[in-house]
């Protein structure tokens, strides 16, 4: 569910925007009249809510889906879809800039048409919005209600003046950007993922606060569109969750794009001077200022738990960590479940969808599916991309699991070399002494695509020995997995086995 607050500029009205809104919040929409108790009421029509509602309806449940703003949630409107659309165009411009490295000619006049970039983005949003339109959801047997939902009791929720009674409910209201507590920032005005895609002009100078996934992705994209980008991160490296080598490669890559990087640096104050925004930064006790045209804050997300009447339904929550759920995604109200960003640490579209499936099964069919059983990969779509699945080495060692990492450098992968995409690596972590894959990190131009093979292996319990037996298409970048698996096989060739082999051959 998209939070409507603090969005200074609305999305530009054009044919695509109108087309999209006609589908994801039709102006003439009339909410249905509730008839009897619903098997499932879903609050929030983001990826988790839509998935949960459709799954339940497909299984024959009577389902209501409530959305206060736009169907599709962050993913479609202010998250993955628009960001990946503009990142694609940003890669195109980087490709033109670097044409000479590929034996090409740099076009004479590279002129970034920002309006066209954003128009393409809206066109793509409109197209992808079709699949989850209000009309389609109705056709799928889901009663779609627009309006703010509020629990009125442990088994009822109110929306737009109607009371919906339910046997089970699923809260999937998502999260919104955290409001940074930086003096002067709110008064000066700033961008978040909720309004940055409404920009019609590319900021000449942009300060990005926070070196998390969103900050890094958009810093790189805007830099490639010609913005003079400064990024300030108060940690010693970008993407603090990721492996240090991954973060280092990303840091080098951002620097190559011409981004001014300030690590270990905090934004301490902001004020306006004429049309400029003056930002005071502090690092190692030293203070300095930069003047920019726009500020993008990407410093974390807060769950949407307010104004839902959770107390009335006896649902425990925390303003920071969201709705409290057990491993079966059940809240403190046995009839109410939650899924996605509102209750999970991993705030990703695919995690929201996967958790919603579990919640629906557990809610309606007495399922005993556990959230902790999920293998959730994720990816930061910078160039190169950084993807991860499973355990980090540190997590494994904390659990006293001995780990060995098989590393393949992308510069040793033929297809990465032919593609001129040699930056990065594949690291596969196995339980030492076995071929069991615990986790993996991939840094590569298409790491997000590549990680799926490893997620499959982990999810299906396939070890590195089996991966080594799988014939991988040559030349592909995913061949790096096979190379890592082959390295594992070579470690099995102990001196004793070599001795036996030599004896056998001699005989």
């Amino acid at each position, binding site marked *: 569910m998209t939070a409507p607050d603090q969005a200074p500029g609305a999305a530009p009205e054009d044919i695509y925007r109108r087309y999209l809104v006609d589908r994801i919040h039709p102006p003439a929409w009339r909410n249905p009249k509730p008839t009897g108790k619903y098997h499932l009421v879903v609050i929030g029509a983001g990826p988790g809510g839509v998935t949960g509602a459709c799954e339940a309806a497909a299984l024959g449940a009577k389902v209501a889906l409530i959305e206060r703003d736009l169907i599709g949630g962050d993913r479609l409107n202010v998250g993955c879809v628009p960001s990946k659309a503009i990142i694609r165009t940003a890669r195109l411009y980087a490709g033109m800039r670097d044409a*000479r*490295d590929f034996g090409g000619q740099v076009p004479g006049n590279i002129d970034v048409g920002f309006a066209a970039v954003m128009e393409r983005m809206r066109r793509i949003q409109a197209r992808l919005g079709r699949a989850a339109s209000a009309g389609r959801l109705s056709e799928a047997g889901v009663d779609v209600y627009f309006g703010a939902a509020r629990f009125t009791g442990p088994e009822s929720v109110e929306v737009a003046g109607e009371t919906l009674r339910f046997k089970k409910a699923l809260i999937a209201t998502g999260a919104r950007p955290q409001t940074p507590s930086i003096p002067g920032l709110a008064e000066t005005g700033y961008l978040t993922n909720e309004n940055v895609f409404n920009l019609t002009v590319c900021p000449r100078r942009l300060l990005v606060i926070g070196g998390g996934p969103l900050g890094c992705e958009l810093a790189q994209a805007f830099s490639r569109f010609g913005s003079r980008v400064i990024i300030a991160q*108060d*940690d*010693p*490296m970008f993407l603090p969750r990721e*492996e*240090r*080598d991954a973060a*280092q*490669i990303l840091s*080098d890559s951002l620097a*190559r794009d011409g981004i001014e990087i300030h690590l*270990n640096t905090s934004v301490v104050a902001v004020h306006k001077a004429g049309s400029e925004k003056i930002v005071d930064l502090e690092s*190692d*006790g*030293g203070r300095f200022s930069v003047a920019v045209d726009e500020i993008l804050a990407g410093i974390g997300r807060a769950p949407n738990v307010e104004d839902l009447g959770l107390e009335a339904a006896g649902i425990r929550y925390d303003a920071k960590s969201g709705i409290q759920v057990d491993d079966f995604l059940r809240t403190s109200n046995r009839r109410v479940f939650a899924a996605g960003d509102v209750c999970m640490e991993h705030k990703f579209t695919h995690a929201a969808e996967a958790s919603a499936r579990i919640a629906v099964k557990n809610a309606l069919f007495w399922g005993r599916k556990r959230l902790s059983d999920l293998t959730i990969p994720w990816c930061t779509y910078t160039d190169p991309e950084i993807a991860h699945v499973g355990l980090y*080495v*540190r997590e494994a*060692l*904390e659990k006293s699991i*001995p*780990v*060995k*990492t*098989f*590393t393949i*450098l992308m*510069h*040793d992968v033929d297809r990465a070399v032919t593609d001129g995409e*040699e930056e990065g*690596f594949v*690291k596969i972590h196995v339980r*030492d002494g076995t071929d069991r894959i615990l986790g993996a990190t991939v840094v590569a131009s298409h790491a997000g695509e590549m990680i799926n093979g490893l997620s499959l292996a982990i999810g299906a319990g396939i070890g590195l020995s089996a991966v080594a037996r799988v014939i991988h298409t040559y030349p592909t970048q995913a061949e790096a997995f096979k190379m890592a698996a082959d*390295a*594992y096989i*070579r*470690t099995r060739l102990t001196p004793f086995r070599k001795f036996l082999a030599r004896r056998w051959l001699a005989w």
Partner: protein
Amino acid sequence: MVEAAPESVAGTDPESARETDDALLDRFQAAAVGYFLKHVNPENGLAADTSRPGSPASIAVVGFALSSYPLGVERGWMNRADAAAISLVTLDFFWNSRQSDQPDATGHKGFYYHFLDMKTGRRVWQCELSLIDTTLLLAGVLEASVYFNADNPVEAAIRACADAIYRRVDWQWARGGGVTARQGWKPESGFLHYGWEGYSEASIVYVLGLASPTHKLPDDSFKAWTETYQWENIYDYELLYAGPLFIHLFSQAWIDFAGIRDRFMREKGCDYFENTRRAVYVQREYARRNPHGFKGYGKDSWGLTANDGPGYEIKTINGRERRFLGYAARGVPYGPDDGTIGPCAALASLPFAPELVLPALRHLCAAYPEMTRDAKLPSGFNPTLPGAGPAGWVSEGYYGLDQGLLVLMIENYRSGLIWKLMRQCPYIGGGLRRAGFTGGWLS
């Protein structure tokens, strides 16, 4: 375009070609020791960070200087009385200089600022109170206390002063409230914010921190640090990974890790000596593969480490855009790599993989005679960036850390003197045991 023609020999250095290995090493070691004879202030024992004019002192370089004096005596390059005298002057300075939280003190809580004014001994450049650099200084201090064991007033004073300096260090404070040691502290902003995760040169910090009879690090600090380790299979070598070569060498310069193992290494069937050896092989393999096509890389020309570089600039060379770095921690295989080779770190790997290092040294002499003629090795050179000779860009002057590491490691290869002395230091053995090391010479 393939730029690398790495394995060819660009020139010849007849002198080195005729020398025996020992004579060759003697020449390079003597030249490196010469750094300390020339760039130490006899008034206070402070050693310059670099040979460049106006360079401040680096406390770590002082640690290397103190460690060099005993071997200088043993090799006949100094007499014992002079070595003891300069050692005592140095220790006196560090014991008596101002310790306080004021920004221009020499140290605080027993630690010292990374860079000091060569004359006044006060903090310069608003630099940090450095844990690792203080530890390298302490290693030199403690080595002096072991070597100067004679029953005379000067050598007795060395021993007393060294012990006092070590006991004053407040390792507990240096955790900044956490479990593991922090990298440093500044009076202006408190403890440094930098992460110090993964294997690094900090082993000796933990060893000396754990052994302190006065303000020791907690027992679980070493374990907590080793939980950030990554054991990797890279190029078919299995090792505790760290990119820059110096990381595999600094603690090893003083501590003989051969045959002794902590829990992590017991689990992996390895030790830190063997690990450094493997790291050297990975360095060489990286240079052979030379993924970025830098000039000069090859089987006998390798060594990516923290060292001086050409400076931050972008240049197009042979149609390819190259981004050069200044002083930076270069590493394999993830980089950064700007084509700058660290010859000192490569030569300092001698005790661990002499079969790779000796050919590399002879290659350096043959390919870059203009750089190696006086047997002093620069911090870095970069054949990709054109310079006066085939070595391309060559770092100006010399760095004390490089020279110190060279002196100690060549000695460890030749006689094992530093390792032997430090094995006698109770704090080294005690710290290793508290960190969970067993076996080998600890038995």
